[in-house]
């Protein structure tokens, strides 16, 4: 770290400390008004959705009871009364049923071995609760340490809790980050090339290279490769991290992770 933490800490605090505060009551009143509006919109959306379901049932039930066969043969799809927020909406997480299910962890581990040539891959954390779906794997390639993590980062727990889900493209901005690109399918790729691993007590010879992919349907994949045998401890085994950027990109963008 080239500048001491306390310098930035101090500067931020000093800059914020004597900031002329606006009228707090006015801000709170504005927040309450906007909050009430959001609640009303949510209720209206729920009402329309209910109306759409009832409308669809009104068309289907008579048919089941021997109603007008002309209606039953009508090939036009039944449209909902309103179209709600889509998975692409920046403030709305994709509905869980549009997300691809992940293949079993043992198959994922085997694929990581096949793609990277890793001698051993360990599943460190797998959450099968159905709420969040992280998979974290640690492995060793050419004696060097790698980590592979895949998770649905628009965690439905956050959404249900009223929080702000993160949009798929939140990881980086191509306009301001040259190592950030938008792929043809809309996903974002952040390539962070060789750098010191950093962190307290980590030898300066420990290098890492990382890549993060965020997909439009809410998956985020992180791959990190090191030139040493461990993240914080171990010995240096190669002059560079043991996976190239191309290998990491192939790993992250593979369809093999999804059932």
């Amino acid at each position, binding site marked *: *770290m*080239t*500048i001491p*933490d306390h*310098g*930035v*800490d*101090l*500067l*931020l*605090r*000093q*800059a*914020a*400390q*004597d*900031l*002329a*505060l*606006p009228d*707090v*009551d006015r*801000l*709170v009143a*504005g*927040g*309450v*008004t*906007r*909050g*009430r509006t*959001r*609640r009303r919109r*949510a209720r209206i959306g729920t009402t329309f959705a209910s109306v759409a379901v009832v409308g669809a049932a009104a068309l289907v039930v008579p048919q089941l009871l021997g109603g007008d066969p002309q209606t039953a043969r009508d090939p036009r799809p039944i449209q909902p009364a309103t179209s709600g927020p889509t998975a692409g909406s*920046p*403030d709305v997480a994709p509905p869980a049923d549009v997300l691809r299910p992940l293949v079993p962890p043992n198959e994922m581990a085997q694929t990581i071995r096949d793609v990277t040539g890793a001698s051993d891959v360990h599943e460190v954390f797998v959450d099968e609760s159905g709420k969040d779906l992280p998979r974290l794997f640690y492995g060793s390639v050419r004696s060097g340490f790698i980590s592979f993590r895949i998770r649905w980062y*628009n965690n439905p727990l956050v959404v249900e*809790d*009223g*929080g*702000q*889900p*993160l*949009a798929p*493209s*939140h*990881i*980086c*901005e191509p306009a*301001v*980050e040259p190592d950030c690109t938008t792929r043809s399918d809309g996903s974002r790729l952040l390539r*962070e090339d060789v*750098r010191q691993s*950093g*962190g307290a007590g980590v030898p300066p010879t420990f290098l890492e290279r*990382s890549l*993060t992919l965020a997909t439009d349907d809410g998956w985020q994949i*992180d791959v*990190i490769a090191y030139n040493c045998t461990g*993240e914080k401890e171990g010995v240096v085994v190669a002059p560079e991290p043991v996976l190239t950027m191309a290998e990491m990109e192939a790993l992250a963008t593979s369809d093999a992770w999804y059932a």
Partner: protein
Amino acid sequence: MSRRHHEFEEFARARTPQLYRSAWMLCGDAHRAEDLVQDTLAKVFVRWHRPLVGAIDNPAAYAHTTLVRTYISAQRRRSNHERPTEHLPEQAVTGPQHQDGAATRLTLAAALEELAPLDRAVLVMRYLDDTSVADTAAALGVSGQAVRNRTLRALDRLRAVLGTSLDDLIESGGS
């Protein structure tokens, strides 16, 4: 007014100054900061009044996470062409100390403007809000390693932008 609503207003009044400070450091100007705080309070209001769910475990942390996420989403939606070319005047303050503070703040804001939104968010959460690496990572949906990497990168960029004036800024800001 219901007890729940009264409690929300009390919470909002108590937290708004700190939320506003963080918002200002993220946005770099008073008007966008106020807008961000009101959007944040609105989202917390909805969660606070949601029926059939318990109270928020840590409302202050929840509000700050919502603030940062709302900022990042808004930044992504903003067109690059919408960036202001100059800052609107702030509220008038008097005295040399305030003038020094304002100059420090504007210099820092200009330096922060050079950072990617997520990097700014990491710096503000880590160094202004005192959020741990783990909590910052959870709030931003990235790994702890990514938070550390972004912190290092953001600090390096701030150092490059501010140059040798960093120490002077700290001194003048504290005078």
